[in-house]
C-alpha cells in the first residue's frame, strides 16, 4: 500500500485510465458476445418456406394468424402464420396473450423442428386492439412485392 502513496500523480492517472479502459473493454467483449448469440432475426413466412431461416438459432416470424387454422390440443395450440403467400404451421404450449386472434397480426419466436413445424417459445400480440405489429406488416408487404415481381 505504501508503494502507491509514493506514486507520481501522472502514473496514478495512467493507472486509473488503464483500469477504466479494462472495464470498458470487458464490457465491450460481453456486449459483442451477447449480441452474437442473443439476437433474434425476423424472418418472413415466405423466407422460412424458401429455406432462408437460420437452422441453429431461434428466430422470429411476423405475419397474420390464418383464419380457421387454430386447433387446440389441451394446453398446446396449433395455428398457421401466413404472409398471404406462404403458410408456416406453428405450435405453442402455454397460454396465448389476450389479443391473439385469428385473422390478426402476431409475432412468434422459436425454432423449426424436423417436420418443418415452427415450435414457438413465445407468442407476442401487442396490447392495443387496433395495433398491427410492424414486423407482421413488413412480412405482408415483402410477400406482396415478391408476388408482383413474379
Amino acid at each position, binding site marked *: 500500500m505504501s508503494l502507491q502513496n509514493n506514486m507520481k500523480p501522472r502514473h496514478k492517472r495512467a493507472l486509473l485510465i488503464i483500469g477504466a479502459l479494462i*472495464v470498458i473493454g470487458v464490457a465491450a467483449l460481453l456486449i459483442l458476445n451477447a449480441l452474437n448469440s442473443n439476437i433474434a432475426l425476423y424472418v418472413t413466412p415466405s423466407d422460412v418456406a424458401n429455406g432462408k431461416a437460420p437452422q441453429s438459432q431461434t428466430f422470429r416470424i411476423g405475419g397474420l394468424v390464418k383464419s380457421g387454422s387454430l386447433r387446440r390440443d389441451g394446453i398446446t395450440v396449433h395455428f398457421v402464420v401466413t404472409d398471404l403467400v406462404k403458410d408456416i404451421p406453428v405450435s405453442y404450449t402455454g397460454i396465448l396473450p389476450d389479443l391473439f386472434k385469428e385473422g390478426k397480426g402476431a409475432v412468434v419466436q422459436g425454432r423449426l423442428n424436423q417436420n418443418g413445424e415452427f415450435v414457438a417459445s413465445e407468442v407476442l400480440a401487442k396490447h392495443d386492439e387496433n395495433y398491427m*405489429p410492424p414486423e407482421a406488416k413488413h412480412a405482408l408487404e415483402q410477400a406482396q412485392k415478391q408476388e408482383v415481381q413474379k
Partner: protein
Amino acid sequence: MIPELGHYALILAFCIALVQGVLPLLGAYQGRREWLVLAKPAAQTVFLLLAFAFGSLAWSFYVNDFSVLYVAEHSNTQLPTVYRFGAVWGGHEGSLLLWLLLLSTWTFLVAQLSDALDEFMVARVIGVLGLVSSGLLLFVIATSNPFERLLPAAQEGRSLNPLLQDPGLVFHPPMLYMGYVGFSVAFAFAIASLLSNRLDAAWARWSRPWTTAAWIFLTLGIALGSWWAYYELGWGGWWFWDPVENASFIPWLVGTALLHSLAVTEKRGVFKSWTVLLAITAFSLSLLGTFLVRSGVLTSVHAFATDPRRGIFILILLSLVVGSSLTLYAIRAPKRATGAQFTLTARETMILLGNVFLVAAAASVLLGTLYPLLIDALNLGKISVGPPYFNAVFVPIMIPLLVLMGIGPWTNWKNTHLLTVIQRLWIAALLAVIAAVLIPTIMGEFTWLASLGFLLAFWIIGSGIQQVMRQFKTGRPTRSFIGMQFAHLGIAIFVIGVTMVGAYQEERDVKMSSGDTVTVGAYQIQMKGIGAVAGPNYKATRGTFEVSRKGQLETTLYPEKRNYFSSTMPMTEAAINAGLTRDIYVSLGEALPDQSWAVRVYYKPFVDWIWGGCLLMALGGLIAISDKRYRSKWRATHEA
C-alpha cells in the same frame, strides 16, 4: 371555452418561457441586473400558466367534453372519475403537458428555494430551465396540442386502453416524469456553472439534494411500472427489458453514478469534469427516453401514437441540447487537474470505479435498445434484442459493482490502508459465504447463480451491519450515512428478490376444470368453479381457486377475464396472494372446448422484495436529502 383558455395559457407560457430563457442568461453575461431579476417572476408565471393549462385539460376530462379531440380519444362517460383524471396523461399530448407542468414545477421550486444562492447563478439556472421549457412548449403547441377541437363533438368517447385503467398506472407516469424531468435541474446547474466558470464544491453541494430528489422519483416511478406490469399484464414477469423500460432505466443508472460522483466533488473537489459530463448525460438520456417512447420508433406497449413529425422535432431538440452543452463543456470544462491528492485505494477511486461500472451498464443497455433501430435504419434486416442479451451483459457488469459496494463505504477519503479494511471485513465475508451455501440448500436446489446472488446480497448486508456498528461506536451517524445504509440495503434486498424469483419460481400453464388441483411450491391450488360477474364498465368471467398448504386452506383467489364495454379486447386480471416470502399468482387464459380453462399458476418466492428494495432505496434518498447540512454549509461557505 375552458379548452381555449388552456390553449391560450400554453401559448402565453411559451412566450414567457422564452423571456425566462433568454433575458436572465444575457443579463448574467452582460452584467445587467435589471434583466437578472426577471428570472424568478417569469418562472413563477410559467408555472402558474401551465398549472392552469393542465387544470383546463383535467376539467375537460371531468365534464366529458368530447368536443376536445384528446378527451374524445382517451375517455368516455363510463370511465370512473379517478381514471378520468388518470386519463389526462393516458395519451401522448396529455403526458407531454404533464412533462411540461413538472418541468415548470421543478423550476418553480428552484426559484423558491434558492435564496442562499447568488443572483447570477440563480438567473443562469432558471434561464437554462427556461430554454428547455420553451423548446418543449413549442413542440407541444406545434405538433401535439392537447386542446384541439373535434367538431362536431363526438357523442361518446373512445375508451382509455383497459390496461391503463389501474391505480398503479395513474401514479406511474407522474412519478417517472418527475424523475426524468428532475435531472433537468442538475443539468441546469451544470450548465450554469460552466457558464460562470464556477465549478466548485458549492456547486456540487447545491446540485446534490436536487439530483437525489429526482433520483427518488425515478426509482419509485420505475418500481411502480414494474409492479404494474407484474400484476396487470398477466404474465407474472417484473421486468421485460422492453425498450420503454430501458428508456427509464438508462437515466437511472447514469443518475445513480451522478449521485455518487457529486458526493466526491462536494467532499473533495475532484472529478468536476466527470460530474458535469454525467449531469449533462443524465438529462440528455431523459430526453432521449422521451424521444424513444413518444416518437413511436419503438414498437411496444407505450407507442400508442406514431407521428414522424414529432419524432423529428424531439430529435432536433435533443441534438440542440446535447450539441450545445457538449460544446460548452469542451470550451469550459476544467482541463488541469485540481491537484487534490488521493491514492488508488482511496474512497475517490472506489466511487470512480463504481461510476465506470454504472456507466458501462448504461451504455450496454442503451446499445441493446438502439441496435435493432440502427440495423433497421441501415436496411440490414429486422432483429430483436431480447432479455437474453441484457441478462448476459448486464448481470456480469453488476457483479463487481456489488462487490465494490461492500468495500467502498469502508474506505477513507485521500488514502486507505486496504489491508486493514479487508481484515475487518472477514465477518461480512463469512456471513456471505454461509448465506450462499445455506439458503440454496434450504430452498431445496443448489445452483451457482443463486448462490452467487445470495453471496453478493449478504456481503452488502454484512458490510452494512459492520459499518453501522462502527458508526455507533464513534458517534451519532449523520443522515447522509443513514440514507446510504438504507439505499444500499435496498439494493441487497432487491438482489435477494431477483435471485429467489430467478432460481426458485414455479410457473405452470395447465388445463383445469372445476375440482382439478395443481401444485406449485408447497401449495395446492384447486379450481372450485367459474362464473360471470358484472363490473362498473365491464363484464367478467371469474374463477374461484382455493389455495391450501399442508391441507390447510390459506386463501381463496378470484382471477378474472374482463370484457370492457367500450373495447373489444379481453383483459386478464390476475389474482395474487402476496406475502413476505412468496406470492401465489393465478390468472385465467382462455376457455377450452370441454368446460375447462387454460390457467396460469405461479409460485413466486420473495418477489415483493424486488419492489421493497426499491422502496428502501427511495427511502434512503429521502433520509439523505433531509440532512440539514446542505443548507447550513452552503451559507457558511457562501458568506465566508
